[in-house]
């Protein structure tokens, strides 16, 4: 074994240090809060460890917050609704993003970079501003309704803002690039001669797409779907701005617990439960990636 140099140690340990400081430590703090009791004051929870006497530490663990999550249907509904909203949005992103990525990957090389830049162009504007802009488009006297009424197609404005529809639009619009980019990456490096070989063996182009292109792009489909699904589950800004008061999403519930109810322990429990819920798809993602890396050379 070669001795590992100090420089190499530094390079390896730096990202771990980062994760430790900005992920693990906050996670432990939140986890600790989730196991404590609410109280009035600052901070608004009972510390877990208390020095009762000089040498006696009182450790108080309260699992009641988690029990509460299970008891109150609000949380279960919010979780389920978040997941279904994220799943439907992911599917819509896939349906819109796949043809886009396919189209870009198959256009002339000189056009590809321009088209890719157009996909990423919205990132140059703040995410918040872009979501706000949708309010102007969707609201009752907004762009779409004014246009339709002006053309005489409708007399009453269609209510779009503060509906689930608006939330889907917001999520699909915001996360579409995260779907397109990994899909493009897998489609672009696909060997075109495979399709020629399929055609040569008597395979119609549509069938060749289904039997060759699509299966070989599955790593991109999985990566893109997880990149959309995971943040969409915990999304707060979009349902808060575009959704109605009855749009129940876990990000919004979390916000309400923290800032309106000031119930930090329950809010922390919500956050931890959500994290555990998302760890499963992340692990599936890593499994898929590992299989991809170990698969074709």
């Amino acid at each position, binding site marked *: 074994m070669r001795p590992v140099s100090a420089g190499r140690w530094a390079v390896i340990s730096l990202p771990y240090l980062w994760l430790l400081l900005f992920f693990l430590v906050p996670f432990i703090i939140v986890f600790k809060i989730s196991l404590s009791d609410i109280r009035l004051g600052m901070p608004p929870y009972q510390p877990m460890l208390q020095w009762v006497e000089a040498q006696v530490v009182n450790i108080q663990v309260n699992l009641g917050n988690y029990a509460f999550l299970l008891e109150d249907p609000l949380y279960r509904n919010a979780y389920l609704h978040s997941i279904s909203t994220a799943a439907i949005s992911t599917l819509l992103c896939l349906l819109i993003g796949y043809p886009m990525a396919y189209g870009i990957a198959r256009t002339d090389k000189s056009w590809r970079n321009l088209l890719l830049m157009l996909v990423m162009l919205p990132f140059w504007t703040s995410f918040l501003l872009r979501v706000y802009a949708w309010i102007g488009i969707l609201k009752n006297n907004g762009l779409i309704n004014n246009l339709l009424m002006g053309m005489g197609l409708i007399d009453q404005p269609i209510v779009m803002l503060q509906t689930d529809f608006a939330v889907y639009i917001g999520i699909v619009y915001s996360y579409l690039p995260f779907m397109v980019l990994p899909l493009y990456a897998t489609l672009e490096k696909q*060997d075109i*001669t*495979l399709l*020629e*070989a*399929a*055609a*040569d*063996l*008597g*395979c*119609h*182009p549509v*069938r060749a797409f289904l*039997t*060759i292109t699509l*299966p*070989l792009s599955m790593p991109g489909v999985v990566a893109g779907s997880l990149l959309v699904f995971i943040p969409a589950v915990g999304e707060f800004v979009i349902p808060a701005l575009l959704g109605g008061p009855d749009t129940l999403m876990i990000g919004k519930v979390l916000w309400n617990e923290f800032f309106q109810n000031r119930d930090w322990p329950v809010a922390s429990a919500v956050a931890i439960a959500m994290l555990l819920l998302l760890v499963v798809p992340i692990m599936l993602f890593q499994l898929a990636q590992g299989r991809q890396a170990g*698969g*074709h*050379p």
Partner: protein
Amino acid sequence: MAETRPDKKLEPWRDRDIQPYIRIERVTKNFGDFTAVDDVSLDIYRGEIFCLLGASGCGKTTLLRMLAGFEQPSSGRIAIDGADMAGIPPYRRPVNMMFQSYALFPHMTVAQNVAFGLKQDRLPKGEIRDRVAAMLELVKLTALGGRKPHQLSGGQRQRVALARSLVKQPKLLLLDEPLGALDRKLREHTQFELVNIQEKLGVTFVVVTHDQGEAMTLASRIGVMDHGEIIQVGTPSDIYEYPTTKFVADFVGSVNLFEGRLVEDEPDHVRVECPELGGCFYVDHGVSAPPAATVWVALRPEKVFISRESPGPGPDNQVPGIIKEIAYLGDLSVYLVQLPTGRMLRVTRPNVRRQDAAFDRLTWDEQVWLSWEASSPVVVTQ
């Protein structure tokens, strides 16, 4: 197979009654300003192994891709088995192709790759299974049917590609540099295997290759291409022994080329005066060229005799020289001999005798005589 017997059945191109299987008529293919294939006309007959031979970029692959249907001719006509192929997409052509990169489907096993073409025809499952098994046996891959392509060696992949392209029993198989990725031993072995399979199945092969050895071993006829044009078509021995142009003489095998002037032009012989040779070639065949025209004489290295003694009455077809370089290749030795004019001449001689200490070998800086028969040189006019 390298040597074609002079049997009419084996030389369908000599028989006027036989219809060609593939008819390429005045086909041109342009990519923008670049002309990849330039006014090519070619007839290929059933059961042939036809090799398109040329350097990379000469248009041979484009011609093959037009046969497969991946490219459409800019002008001209391609007919296969009497049917015009214009506008017929690749998946409706009675043609299969073996790709240079093999193009195996990476997400399918060997057996699934081979079965792919049969599945497109919606054949019954049992028949697909039987035919795949038979094909895998033919290419000796029965044991590896469950492997994925990335688990195979280069030679195994090549055999999967061959099996996949043959399983549909095509009348015409196109092979793009089929042996390019194999090492020399495996290559030689596979060349003979290909010829055996071709004879067993009676398929017409069109092979694209830049390797003249490969073309010589495989082909019933060779078409030499350069800059999008077909320069010469003929049997391997035609191409080698009677090249019609400098390019073909130089491209196929190695050759000594001399520029010269026709000084005697009779129907049964010509004499060509070559300043670089310092003498004349006497060639025992006629040449169709204007008197005193500039011509080139091609002389194959193995057709030159090398000896210490003067070969006898001259002065044509013999020249003295000094051995400058010797390359011992085992089966033969290559001598580079400097002529009095300063020109180097390449001579090869088979090592018939063991070159041990007792052998009185020719050595460096030795004075030798080079000579050749009047039938050996070939005169080309372009």
